[in-house]
């Protein structure tokens, strides 16, 4: 591991890679403070900026955008009570109360330090866990791959959606949309309606930009009559530094949040929002000042922020070792890898070790950059919050247009973002979460290949094959158990329209 990491640092500590790492983190934070735009949409919009870069530098920059966005979201949670992205929703509970009581600076400071500590520890865990897991995954054949992807999809539906049947319906719609284009075996066109532009399938970048970016534009236009929320003061620079008492109260929540966040992040579907809610639930039980939670307790900021950032590091484990994106942002990073001719999965560490270790090393550097820039640049990020709504809308539209066009140098991508924009706006309002849909589109082609290969291997004797492939059988059993548990559980509160946080 140390040799690989040294190789990774050698790749990252070049002026070019360092520049793009810093640029990614700053861009991520700038966009992350804007309510509504999550990491997946941000990565999709900024993907064209990386087209001319080598694979490692490209993923370093996009990774910087990812965890920059995760931190940027907490600034709006604390100062506006409007989460910049979904994972920061919990931070708003105590962070905003702290800001109302004149301790906004301390809340922002502990969020920054908590994110840094948890993010760095999460990367250490990633470096330790990923190589053995990748070696193990090399032994997976088509039945195991197929079963693993089914586990991933059912977990995403179980953990993410408010209604398991609706989340699974969206996953199935995604799988169906993933079959648009040429058949992987016979090369016959399927569901293309005779359009040559659909022969290569639906472009993932355009799908994500439509579902999240254009849907957000529509939401901002619909809400145009509403007044923007009032921004609270955050104090001077030195007030951003937590006191000794703050550190004492925050150490336990940060440690618990880091462990829980990383473990949640590793599970497909285990997004930052689940990690931060899990951390908050733990603090309600174990925090020293748990009675004050919800009234401006620093533990309510430190724990969820640590969990959120540790989950961001944990989410790289299934992506880099199994090629399985656990959330839409990881799906976009998978797309970025593929655009640059690198396929994440068990073979990544063997075939492209410099890419793997550069990504890991860049996360150490990125976390350091986040901490170094967070505190001094907080005034800049707050100014971004004062951007008028119409300015925000035109900015999102122009980046979506360029991204959709640049994906294939063809205006067809703009029709795709227009179509998926309507879906991304209306489906959550009808109770359908679009995140399983994105993962279905991503996993559709590899799942179909593994499914058909598995069926061909069995030649009609699939029960016999499963009895020989114990791991595949166990994974299928797990998928069925998750499915049964999700369908049997009572409906979660408010399973009507969903909030639109990608």
């Amino acid at each position, binding site marked *: 591991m140390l040799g690989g990491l040294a190789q990774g640092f050698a790749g990252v500590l070049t002026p070019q890679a360092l520049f793009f790492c810093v640029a990614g983190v700053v861009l991520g934070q700038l966009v992350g403070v804007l309510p509504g735009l999550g990491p997946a949409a941000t990565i999709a919009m900024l993907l064209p900026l990386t087209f001319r870069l080598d694979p490692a530098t490209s993923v370093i920059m996009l990774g910087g955008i990812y965890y920059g966005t995760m931190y940027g979201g907490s600034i709006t949670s604390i100062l506006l009570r409007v989460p910049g992205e979904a994972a920061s929703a919990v931070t708003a509970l105590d962070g905003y109360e702290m800001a109302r009581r004149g301790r906004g600076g301390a809340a922002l400071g502990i969020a920054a330090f908590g994110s840094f500590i948890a993010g760095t520890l999460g990367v250490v865990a990633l470096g330790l866990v990923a190589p053995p897991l990748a070696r193990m995954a090399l032994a997976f054949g088509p039945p195991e791959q197929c079963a693993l992807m089914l586990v991933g999809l059912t977990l995403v539906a179980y953990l993410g959606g408010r209604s398991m049947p609706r989340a699974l319906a969206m996953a199935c*719609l995604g799988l169906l949309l993933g079959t648009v284009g040429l058949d992987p075996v016979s090369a016959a066109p399927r569901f293309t309606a005779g359009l040559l532009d659909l022969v290569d399938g639906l472009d993932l970048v355009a799908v994500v930009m439509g579902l999240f970016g254009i849907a957000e534009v529509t939401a901002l236009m619909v809400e145009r009559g509403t007044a923007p929320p009032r921004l609270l003061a955050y104090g001077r620079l030195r007030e951003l530094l937590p006191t000794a008492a703050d550190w004492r109260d925050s150490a336990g929540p940060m440690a618990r949040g880091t462990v829980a966040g990383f473990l949640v992040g590793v599970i497909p579907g285990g997004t930052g929002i689940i990690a931060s809610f899990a951390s908050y639930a733990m603090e309600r039980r174990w925090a020293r000042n748990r009675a004050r939670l919800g009234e401006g307790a620093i533990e309510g900021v430190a724990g969820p922020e640590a969990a959120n950032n540790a989950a961001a590091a944990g989410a790289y484990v299934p992506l880099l070792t199994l090629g399985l994106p656990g959330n839409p942002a990881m799906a976009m990073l998978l797309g970025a890898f593929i655009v640059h001719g690198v396929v994440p999965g068990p073979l990544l560490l063997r075939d492209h070790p410099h890419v793997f270790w550069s990504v890991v090393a860049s996360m150490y550097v990125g976390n350091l950059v986040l901490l170094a820039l967070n505190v001094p640049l907080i005034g800049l990020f707050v100014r971004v919050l004062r951007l008028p709504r119409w300015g925000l809308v035109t900015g999102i539209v122009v980046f979506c247009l360029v991204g959709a066009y640049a994906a294939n140098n063809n205006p067809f991508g703009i029709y795709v973002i227009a179509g998926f924009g309507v879906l991304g706006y209306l489906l959550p309002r009808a109770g359908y979460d679009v995140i399983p849909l994105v993962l279905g589109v991503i996993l559709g082609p590899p799942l179909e290949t593994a499914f058909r290969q598995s069926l061909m291997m069995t030649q009609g004797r699939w029960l016999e094959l499963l009895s020989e492939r114990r791991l595949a059988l166990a994974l299928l059993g797990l998928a069925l158990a998750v499915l049964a548990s999700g369908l049997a559980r009572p409906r979660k509160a408010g399973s009507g329209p969903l909030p639109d946080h990608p």
Partner: protein
Amino acid sequence: MRGRLADLGLLAVGLAAAGHAAGVHGLRRHGAPGDGLFPFVAAAGLVLFVALGLIVDRTRRCPSVAAAGGGMAALVTALLGLYAAALPHAGYPLATAVLLVVVAKLANPRLGWTRAVSVAVVLAAATFLLFARGLGVPLPLGRLG
């Protein structure tokens, strides 16, 4: 019917796709899985889970499409469709500037024309220079080129 349009639409998509996959592409071919098998399974899953959702969440309340802002969603889609059709002819800078003026005025009807036009022109020109000249993305110039 109120708020059930999405459910019915998804059911229709699932049924149509399942029929197309089984009828046109086939579920088996020469003893092996046919081209239509996987899409059929996905479409059948879509129908099954939408129906299950309707049964499990039958008391769910959703706003109607119009109340949820469906009109604005349709307008944004139409604008983007027109933009995509005009792009090869008008070119990126002109088509984008026009679209951005319309979008800015829709987002804030009280915004002055001078401000909307100047911001749209600057944004269209800046992104053209960044992506086409700086990053080599071949954005079309249309008749201007």
